[in-house]
């Protein structure tokens, strides 16, 4: 279990090399090293999970749980991409949250209306474009919140995260055909929901 990660990895990629060094230090009990990893990946992981669980607080809780799980299971990391490893743990945590919501349906996902939506630094400078982009993002988030959890997960993993059908099937524990069906039905549902707002997306 406590094998030397350097022997199992490709050290050519500086990002992977950095991540593996941090993982090794974290395994040795260095909390700062683990927190460096958290700082590096918390934004991208939150962005992934908040698309699957369209509730900011629940999404943050799911990512937090994923980091807890990663910390508890540092010894089971067997090399390779730390980002992929964390992504998978986060996807599982997000699916657990979705299941918990199904068991205890308290309220539908709140609309993600929030003035604090901001572009990434350097993304946009034109205020009009920023406004359109923000409006488009809100419309998409609201539409995503209205399709089923399974469809949303499959679409986010395929269209946003770039996983292929087989990887999504393995991550979600369903067949390849089911993954394709969920993605196709989800896409058609999104279009149905956004029919009146399609002018936002054209051009």
């Amino acid at each position, binding site marked *: 279990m406590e094998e030397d990660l350097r022997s199992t990895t490709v050290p050519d990629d500086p990002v992977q090399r950095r991540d593996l060094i941090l993982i090794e230090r974290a395994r040795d009990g260095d909390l700062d090293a683990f927190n460096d990893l958290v700082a590096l990946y918390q934004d991208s992981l939150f*962005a992934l999970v908040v*698309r699957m669980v369209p509730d900011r607080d629940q999404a943050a809780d799911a990512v937090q749980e994923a980091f*807890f799980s990663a910390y*508890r299971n540092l010894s089971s990391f067997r090399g390779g991409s730390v980002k992929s490893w964390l992504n998978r*743990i986060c996807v599982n945590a997000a699916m657990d949250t979705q299941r918990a919501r199904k068991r205890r349906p308290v309220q539908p996902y709140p609309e993600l209306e929030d003035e604090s939506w901001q572009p990434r630094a350097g993304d946009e400078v034109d205020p009009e474009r920023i406004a359109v982009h923000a409006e488009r993002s809100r419309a*998409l988030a609201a539409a995503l919140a209205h399709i089923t959890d399974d469809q949303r997960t499959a679409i986010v993993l395929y269209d946003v995260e770039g996983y292929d059908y087989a990887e999504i099937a393995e991550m979600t524990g369903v067949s390849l055909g089911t993954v394709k069906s969920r993605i196709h039905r989800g896409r058609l549902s999104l279009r149905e929901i956004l029919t009146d707002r399609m002018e936002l997306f054209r051009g």
Partner: protein
Amino acid sequence: MAEHTPHARHDRFAIADALGGGVVPSTVRTCPACGALHVDLLSIQSALRHAWTPPRPRDLRLTIADVARLKPALWRRVLGIIGSAQDAITRPLGIAFTSLGIGGLLLTALPLGIGAGMATTPVSEYAIRAEQTPGMPSDTTGDATAPPLTTPSPDLLLLASVGSLGTGGAIFVLRRVASRTRGVR
């Protein structure tokens, strides 16, 4: 052909599939509604990739208190060691117990003299000889009053075998549970 069939009968799933590298159906070119659907799906897919997400509500770095809470309990630590690379004991131990159990069961089941036949003789022939000649010290046992040499009764052997088999099985079950507990979800 496609241009003569109404849009409602066109395969919308095939159009959705085309976004994932599938063949673009001919209806996309021949049917305006299918063409519009294809364009809309492509626009949505592209927008999804570039959509902003709301800001993260809090910092997710772990605190010392979190780490203290995450420290596994003793039983979890023991489970963590079982079946891991550090554990060089449980597997051979499980195999040994299981082998002993199977061996014992075979021995009790065997109708030959080496098995149950031998075990059914509760008193050894030395003890019998000593009984037949009272007062005569046995040249082999030395003391006729000494407890007779016996082999385990079949019930005892059966019990020990089943116990050994159960222990071996329990060790393997424990290893399986440990490996599942260690898996990261």
